[in-house]
């Protein structure tokens, strides 16, 4: 079943519409863009206008308890008067032993949640949302407070659970690792509206447009020769850490130049065509199709001076030091 919504939160300046098919859709956006507000409105915890439908079932006129959502809050909100088991069982319609096992909580059953580590608390929050047998999921930074090891371990469980369930799931995160590990497609919340962005993983080249401060804009798979599939030239990359398969670069680290081209210190030159120019706050995001999609963040003035418009031939320069392995 697909989740479809068109929501307005006038006092927060949000007017967001999207379709979320089964699978994990990453939700990106700068701090304060309204990601949490959007999730709370979808769950029925914030007054909103507009429609929310799961399959053919309208949810927007339902109270929160009737929306069937599995919501993991950014601040977790575990019940302090209940132990681990009591928290997980809170909304569960039946036995919870399988959920306790899946999220490795069986040994912690009778621990008070106030005595748990950050990672354990996050597991409890996920298990609690899972145990209610939701029809769709909203995960607000479910891995925010975790050390890398704990995050990887939780990912393995979460990925498996999400894959099996095949529910529509919106995942808010700031981390490129989370996006690579968990998401099938992306939405960017920017200027109060949602913009779809290309999917992330798989062997094909993809581009990610996102609000700048979210921290990552492009995530490219890199083959054994150091090439981003779709582009002809191998990139000049920093040393590849063990197990890294993708590189990321921020749009503000991409320089665009129009012919004639002189020498520069930047090592990576990707020739392509401007495919779109989208406003992003005080700046503009310029998408360049160079085999892989390259997004550059430019000022309006720079765009005027270079006379950039869709169809223009440009060369995108990226410094080696601006590329980061993930």
């Amino acid at each position: 079943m697909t989740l479809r919504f068109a929501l307005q939160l006038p006092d927060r300046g949000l007017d967001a519409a999207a379709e979320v098919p089964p699978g994990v859709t990453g939700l990106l956006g700068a701090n304060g863009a309204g990601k949490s507000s959007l999730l709370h409105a979808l769950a029925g915890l914030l007054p909103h206008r507009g429609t929310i439908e799961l399959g053919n079932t309208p949810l927007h006129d339902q109270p929160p308890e009737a929306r069937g959502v599995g919501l993991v809050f950014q601040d977790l909100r575990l019940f302090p008067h209940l132990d681990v088991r009591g928290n997980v069982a809170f909304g569960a319609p039946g036995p919870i032993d399988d959920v306790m096992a899946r999220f490795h909580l069986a040994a912690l059953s009778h621990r008070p949640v106030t005595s748990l580590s950050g990672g354990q608390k996050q597991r409890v929050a996920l298990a609690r949302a899972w145990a209610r047998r939701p029809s769709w999921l909203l995960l607000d930074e479910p891995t925010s407070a975790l050390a890398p090891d704990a995050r990887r371990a939780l990912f393995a469980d979460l990925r498996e659970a999400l894959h099996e369930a095949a529910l529509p799931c919106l995942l808010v995160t700031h981390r490129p690792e989370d996006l690579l590990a968990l998401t099938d497609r992306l939405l960017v919340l920017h200027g109060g509206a949602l913009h779809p962005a290309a999917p992330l993983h798989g062997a094909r080249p993809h581009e990610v447009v996102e609000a700048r401060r979210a921290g990552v804009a492009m995530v490219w798979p890199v083959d054994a020769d150091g090439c981003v599939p779709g582009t002809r030239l191998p990139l000049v990359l920093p040393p590849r850490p063990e197990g890294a398969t993708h590189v990321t670069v921020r749009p503000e680290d991409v320089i665009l130049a129009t012919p004639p081209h002189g020498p520069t210190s930047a090592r990576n030159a990707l020739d392509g065509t401007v495919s779109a120019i989208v406003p992003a706050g005080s700046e503009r995001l310029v998408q360049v199709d160079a085999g892989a999609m390259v997004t550059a963040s430019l000022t309006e003035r720079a765009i005027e001076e270079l006379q950039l418009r869709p169809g223009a031939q440009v060369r995108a320069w990226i410094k080696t030091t601006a590329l980061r392995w993930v």
Partner: protein
Amino acid sequence: MTPDELHAIALSLGIAAAATAIDLPVALLLGTWFARHRSTAIVLVEALVMAPLVLPPVVTGYGLLLLFGPRGLGLPVAFTPAAAVLASAVVALPLFVRGVRHAVEGVDTTLVEAARSLGASPWAAWRRVVLPLALPGVLGGAVLAFARAVGEFGATAVFAGSIAGRTRTVPLAIYGALQQVDDGGTAWRLSLAAVGLSLLGAVAAELIARRRT
């Protein structure tokens, strides 16, 4: 102690217990309501409920007398044990409501949202999250209300009178004894009993308050 004195103590405890029991659902309802909502109407209701805290109890008793009298509801309640219970309940209610209200205010509303998202109706969220977390404050309010009911004098004297074995509670019995030239030590013994009971109540309230923190 004489059988009459023991009876007065038992009657006091029984009336106070009944008054506290009647106040419990009212205090839970009003305390939650006052904690979570603000409007002019609510402020007015709150002022009315809180009034016995500042009114002379005699005036509260007179008010009850008028309310239940022939020109009011016309119910034959006055000068019965029920009247003593009612007077104590009205006078003790503000303390109870205040205790509940502070306790509910201390419960994080985001936990209620979490409960709702997990399928709990507003009532279920209150019962399963708000009430357990507010329980120490609710118990504290109950102890204070009970203690206030045990000590109740003015409203009871006006509305329930001082009928031996029916409405003559410890404070009324002490007052009655003090009116006599020689009470045979009744006032002294009952006063000691009252002091003992009050201390017990204060200790209980303190213990509950400490458990909360």
